[in-house]
């Protein structure tokens, strides 16, 4: 909605990636602006995860340029991405079931006080963080195992916020969630956008995409297959772009007009 005029936070220009004999990504272009949610959709094997991995530094691209706030950058390791301000929340969340919420939020970046864990400060900061994101969980001192799937997802997203990122990538955040939990996570995505963050949302669920995304970028067989404005595009048009079912002159024209409209 609120597209900031002064250029995208992240821009991918001509990204390509090969795995042996497979051309996983071919000449991908994508722009993400601050305060904008871009949904990345596509069928299984379309290259969504591969694309995310190139951004997150897990699997760097073979060709193409990654521009961060207008400047070309090299992202070769996950650490590089974190330094820039890119936070990635993967589908399997990577939380420790046996450790409480505070411990998980600060795992790997514990606050120390005279060389000793500063539990009080970490608990205070956790409560503050969850409050600003309006995340409702029973208590910050219960193990992750006691939380529902949606609550775990919100904790994982909150954890990515600790590094104060500018871009958050969410990989299928609502897969395997119930309806109310999905609503919770989508609310959180909207709050991230309202705080001026750029969000890349990977999803299979068109209802979710329609609910929170501003733009939809469709990947098909490792190529761009159109970028649509959610407001002016119908669900059917997006789905046909995903499946390629109507991969003909008409849809290609529509995809073009979609890009022009943006």
């Amino acid at each position, binding site marked *: 909605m609120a597209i900031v005029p002064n250029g995208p936070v992240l821009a991918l220009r001509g990204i390509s990636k090969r795995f042996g004999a497979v051309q996983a990504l071919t000449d991908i272009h994508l722009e993400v602006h601050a305060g904008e949610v871009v949904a990345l959709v596509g069928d299984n094997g379309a290259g969504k995860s591969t694309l995310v991995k190139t951004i997150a530094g897990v699997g760097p691209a073979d060709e193409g340029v990654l521009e961060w706030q207008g400047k070309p950058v090299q992202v070769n390791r996950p*650490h590089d991405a974190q330094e820039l301000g890119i936070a990635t929340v993967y589908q399997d969340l990577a939380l420790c079931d046996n450790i409480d919420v505070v411990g998980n939020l600060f*795992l*790997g970046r514990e606050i120390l006080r005279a060389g000793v864990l500063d539990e009080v400060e970490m608990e205070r900061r956790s409560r503050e963080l969850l409050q600003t994101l309006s995340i409702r969980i029973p208590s910050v001192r219960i193990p992750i195992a006691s939380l529902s799937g949606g609550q775990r997802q919100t904790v994982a997203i909150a954890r990515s916020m600790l590094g104060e990122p500018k871009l958050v990538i969410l990989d299928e955040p609502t897969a395997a969630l119930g309806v109310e939990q999905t609503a919770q996570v989508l609310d959180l995505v909207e709050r991230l956008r309202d705080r001026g963050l750029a969000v890349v949302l990977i999803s299979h669920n068109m209802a979710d995409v329609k609910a929170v995304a501003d733009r939809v970028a469709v990947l098909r067989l490792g190529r761009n297959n159109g970028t649509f404005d959610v407001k002016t595009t119908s669900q059917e048009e997006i789905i046909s772009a995903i499946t390629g079912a109507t991969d003909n002159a008409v849809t290609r024209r529509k995809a073009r007009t979609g890009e022009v409209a943006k």
Partner: protein
Amino acid sequence: MTTNVDKANGGPSNGGGEGGNKASAPADANPVAKDAVTVVDPRLLVRQEGFKGYLTEFGRKMRSGDLGAVPVIVGIAIIWAVFQWKDSAFLSPKNLSDLSILLGGTGMISVGIVFVLLLGEIDLSVGSLSGLAAATLAVLNVNHGVPEGIAVVAALASGAVLGAVHGFFFAKIGVPAFVVTLAGLLAWNGLMLQVLGTTGTISIDDDSFVRTLTAHYFSQLIAAYGAATVATAGFFLAQFLDARRRKAVGVPARPLSEILVRTAVLAVIVFAAAWRLNEYKGLPLGLVIFVAVLVILDFVVRRTSYGRKVIALGGSVEAARRAGINVVAIRISVYSLAGLMAAFGGLMIASRVGSASQQAGTGNLLMEAIAAAVIGGTSLFGGRGSVWSALLGMLVIGSISSGMNLLGVANSVQYMITGGVLLAAVVIDSVSRRTQRSAGRG
């Protein structure tokens, strides 16, 4: 967005699915809960302030399978009661004092095992490592006349280095820990026999430093009571200051009444122990060393980022790796620590027995060390447990063997009973884990 909210409202009424009238009530309640933006979930059972809240919370924990140290404490109470009833010498000052020294050797080894279990792994080599450390010390010091200090350091270092070797093969090469340490069990036992050579058993001088470790008693009355006072006061101060700081920052803190109750329980235990020990020869140095090691390592587990990393690895290796934790380094260091503690335990046992022999570190020492950690409440499944379980578990095992010896029961029966206790402990661990899962705590 609106479609989702509608669905969310429809969800519970369909899921609740009993009668149309009943189901409509939760559907109406839902939007209200949504508007109220609070961090604390309204469904959370919040503990009430004060002592009564503490009791209800305790009861709830018990029912949900979060048993903690309760089963083992109950077990110790029953064991002590039975033996005292059978033979009044059991709780005599001499027997308790001997028991407290007996705990130290195997207990040290068990502490190392606790760390390995926290990772969710196992170390079968600690028995052999402890024997090897004792042999190293005896051969260097007694046979070759190396100064005792250097011999002790060499013995401890042998444990730490060989433990790190296990860790290397497990963490870096990826060999299952069970196999690596099983190889270690055989190899280091062989090395010990080689080091001892044809001599067989080497006696350690009675006036040597190593002998003093378990032979010395602080016989002044003030020593035991002083130590008890320091422990109680230290515990109270730590808890009190923590609670005060929490209150100042505005996060939930333990109420003063709860801190007082906890301190009182601790005070009763340590002063009773001090009183019994003073009835005999006084406070044994061996016990002091053991408890000091427990306190230090408990602090490491709970209050340092290293301990947090170990526990995280026991919960989810992948999550730990993604959080930037150096998985290989932590694993190697834990196996090294287990080896170091095994060597330390081996020295304590050699100190108590007065010699290093070919039998050292064999027999059921390894099984006792692992059993103690598990009986004490450290989970075999990783990520849950406490250093103190080494002490509690050793109290159970030590009490059984000490009581059986008093009653003149044969070793055969002792082994069977200890085996039964171990099985019971693992059953409690597995069942409580399952209950915790269903109560959402596991």
